[in-house]
């Protein structure tokens, strides 16, 4: 009986330790170049979701609190959780102003359960909106 209690206690302790280890994330320092995007429309592909064609919708979604990401030139998607000292990541005014822009940023990357979370420490370059997709795709999703 005592042995089984001890085993149960040990198992619980191990479980807590593993859980804490899983929660303790270590960031990687990265430099990412890519386009600021709306995460939902891009990942789900419910519509064409890059560049000028999707800019208005991307502003709507960012204003609605949908997470904003950078679609990296490396093809990966980085969810933006922080921009410099600003930890607001729901309806962030600054991110709203650079929606669809081509940027290069530096920051800390946390990889957790298949998601790349990016804490931007500096925006090194901002070329504005350069991905001219509207001639091919019009205005997504409702047209002009």
């Amino acid at each position: 009986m005592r042995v089984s209690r001890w085993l149960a206690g040990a198992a619980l302790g191990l479980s807590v330790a593993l859980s804490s280890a899983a929660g303790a994330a270590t960031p990687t320092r990265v430099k990412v170049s890519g386009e600021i995007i709306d995460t939902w429309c891009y990942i789900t592909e419910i519509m064409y979701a890059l560049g000028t064609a999707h800019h208005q919708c991307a502003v709507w979604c960012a204003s609605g609190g949908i997470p904003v990401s950078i679609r990296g030139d490396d093809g990966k998607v980085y969810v933006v959780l922080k921009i410099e000292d600003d930890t607001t990541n729901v309806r962030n005014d600054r991110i709203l102003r650079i929606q669809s822009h081509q940027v290069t940023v530096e920051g800390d990357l946390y990889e957790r359960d298949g998601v790349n979370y990016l804490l931007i420490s500096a925006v090194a370059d901002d070329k504005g909106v350069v991905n001219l997709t509207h001639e091919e795709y019009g205005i997504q999703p409702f047209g002009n």
Partner: protein
Amino acid sequence: MKSLVKFVGALALLLPFAAQAAEEWGIEHEKTARFEAKVVDILCELTGDCPADCGGGKRQLGLLRDDGRLILPTKNFDIFAGAANDLQPFCNKKIIADGLMIENPKMPLFTLQFKKLAPDGKWHRANWFIRDWAKANNVKRDSDTAEQWYYNDKKIAETIKRDGVYGIPGLKPPKE
């Protein structure tokens, strides 16, 4: 007759449950999912930067399951809206989340359609963004103004007026 009564009784029990179950949206990789998880401030969970009240609505909230998996809710049931408003009242509490798990190889997402306080809370549709937007803008929740909030939001209007629909000042769509 007795079996018919039993059938109708069972149906009556099942219908409210069915009405609160996630609906499929036809998105690639989607699966309906219902699970228990703690509502957490994602930035806090990752970095230990933990303001009171999970950031008071300014931060994306995640769903942390008992197995340690952190799930990113990206969408709620309102058009063009995320799940932060739906989850904020449950900060650091366990809920039952119901929706669509989208295990896209690019990254996994979760769409929240219903939620309730675990284990026995009342089910709520995940549509509190428009509810809160309507209240903040002093219009009725079921008004056209609220339903099409994205055409009526002042900040959006200022952004589109400044940068245009393409995000490039001065570049305008052709007149139809």
